[in-house]
């Protein structure tokens, strides 16, 4: 029984990564209608930027938490301005392929310069050590990850769903020309939103740097699962992806305990089942 609690908790921690990553994807998909395949690569960049900040500039984890998303976000905005922008109004497929291409380039370049086995990034001193919860040893860093991601998720949700910005964005996805004709600088808004989504990915990257290896392919392995999370939650639904992210982490954790061989597969089984029952995901709008 105790072991089960431990698994649940660990699942929640993983869930917070899924939630953060799928949140960024959901923002980008829901608001810009782009299936951002580069998300994994940008997540990886977040981790790398944190590494550089530390090893080259001596800038610590806490600053990296702020700076890396900004830096990667700006990179994302440049991508949006120079490339993605030209795809407005076209089918999803083109955005997907373009961002897939971008992901390949980014990953390839990082691999060339840093190899594929990755670089170490230490846990910041303030978050070292662990708590003995009785049923498990909980590293302090992991506790921090859960709490911090929850806060970020809720803040983002609030920004998108509870302010005007969200309505503008959704409307702009459907008919950018008209929204622009209402007096809103749609291109700038879109660029900033892409920056936000990408920044979220980078943030997740910084968070994961001390836990996982800082590797060029760290995002590539994750991206498909994160896509599944977004689909299960309902494409474009912010809350849907947050909840599904956490829930999936837990479900995966349980699978790892009861039937570990299937822990990579369970998300796809879930996705098929959910889509069979609810054709547009748990909370999604019609495609």
């Amino acid at each position, binding site marked *: 029984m105790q072991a089960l609690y431990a698994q649940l908790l660990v699942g929640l921690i993983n869930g917070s990564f899924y939630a953060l990553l799928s949140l960024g994807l959901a923002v980008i998909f829901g608001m810009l209608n782009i*299936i951002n395949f580069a998300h994994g690569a940008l997540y990886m960049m977040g981790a790398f930027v944190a590494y550089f900040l530390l090893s080259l500039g001596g800038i610590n984890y806490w600053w990296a938490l702020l700076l890396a998303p900004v830096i990667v976000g700006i990179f994302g905005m440049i991508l949006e301005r120079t*490339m993605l922008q*030209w*795809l407005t*109004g*076209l*089918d*999803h*497929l*083109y955005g997907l*392929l*373009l961002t*897939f*291409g*971008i*992901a*390949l*380039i*980014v*990953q*390839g*370049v990082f*691999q*060339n310069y840093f190899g594929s086995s990755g670089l170490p990034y230490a846990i910041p001193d303030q978050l070292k050590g662990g708590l003995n919860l009785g049923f498990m040893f909980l590293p302090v860093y992991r506790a921090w990850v859960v709490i911090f991601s929850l806060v970020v998720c809720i803040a983002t949700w609030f920004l998108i769903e509870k302010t005007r910005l969200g309505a503008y964005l959704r409307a702009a996805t459907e008919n950018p020309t008209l929204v622009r004709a209402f007096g809103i600088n749609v291109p700038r808004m879109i660029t900033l939103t892409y920056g936000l989504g990408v920044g979220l990915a980078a943030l997740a990257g910084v968070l994961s740097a001390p836990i996982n290896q800082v590797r060029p392919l760290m995002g590539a392995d994750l991206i*498909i699962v994160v*896509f*599944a999370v977004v*689909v299960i939650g309902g*494409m474009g639904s912010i809350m849907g992806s947050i909840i599904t992210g956490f829930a999936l982490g837990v479900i995966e954790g349980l699978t790892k305990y009861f039937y570990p*061989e*299937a822990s*990579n*597969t369970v998300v*796809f*089984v879930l*996705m*098929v089942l959910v*889509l*069979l029952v609810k*054709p*547009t*995901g748990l909370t*999604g709008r*019609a*495609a």
Partner: protein
Amino acid sequence: MTALTDDTLPVTPRAMRDEMVVFVVMALLLASVPFTGVYPFFVMQALCFALLACAFNLLIGYGGLLSFGHAMFLGTAGYCSAHALKVWALPPELGIPVGIAAAFVLSLITGYISIRRQGIYFSMITLALSQLLYFIYLQAPFTHGEDGIQGIPQGRMFGVFDLSKPTVLYYVVLVGFLAGFLLIYRIINSPFGEVLKAIRENEPRAISLGYRTDQYKFLAFVLSGTLAGFAGALKVFVAQNASLTDVHWSMSGEVVLMTLVGGLGTIFGPVVGAFAIIAMQQYLASFGQWVTVIQGSIFVICVLTFRRGVIGEIAHYFRRSL
């Protein structure tokens, strides 16, 4: 999903004549390959992928359904054919049908599950199904996991054609490809193909005209999946192995890429796309580490500058459908 094929031109009798001319030219070019000194294995491989891409294009270009799991048909047919040839020691003319049949059955099942989903959800459910299958194949004993089925005997087709001779194999693959290609061409230009296009354009309207659209999409899915399986079965003879690569999602992505590079919803586009991508992979192999970067750049350039694909751009230029 209309923006994908916005440039589809109406097919006029003149267009059909153009297409036949191009087809004959293509067939003659391909038939003369063994006499040109071009490396036949490369062409054979490309032919298999070309058939796969054509099958995929049938679904997306004419049915408006973007499957992100087409590798599952390729891989399944490959594994089953390979198993039939190696373990059951069936001759090629029976080994191929085994693979096709497997893909057919698989497409019935996956089609039944996925066909009612729309747009991006259709893509995702096909992706999920193919991922499930990937994990099954990773575990299943008969696939030999990540080692794959190796050293598959090529055998003698109908007891006469010795497929281990490159030239013989080449013509067998070529005939297979051309047959598949013609079938797809026929499907596109059949009464069924017309209805499919109408459904792609405006499904509610098609329903209101009395078409049970799910059945048409299902048939298109099954045809596409089975033909993809044919490609997979042929590929076994060329590569002489069947491995997880063929069921991995990146293979599904590659098919999308080939079709896109050549021109979505064009008849010859997928063929050109497949040749271009395979050639690129071969050629880039010597670039070592920069492969992914170059490949990525090609994606980006392709999407940004010639979105209609090679054939699509040419067709657009001449205002013909090709």
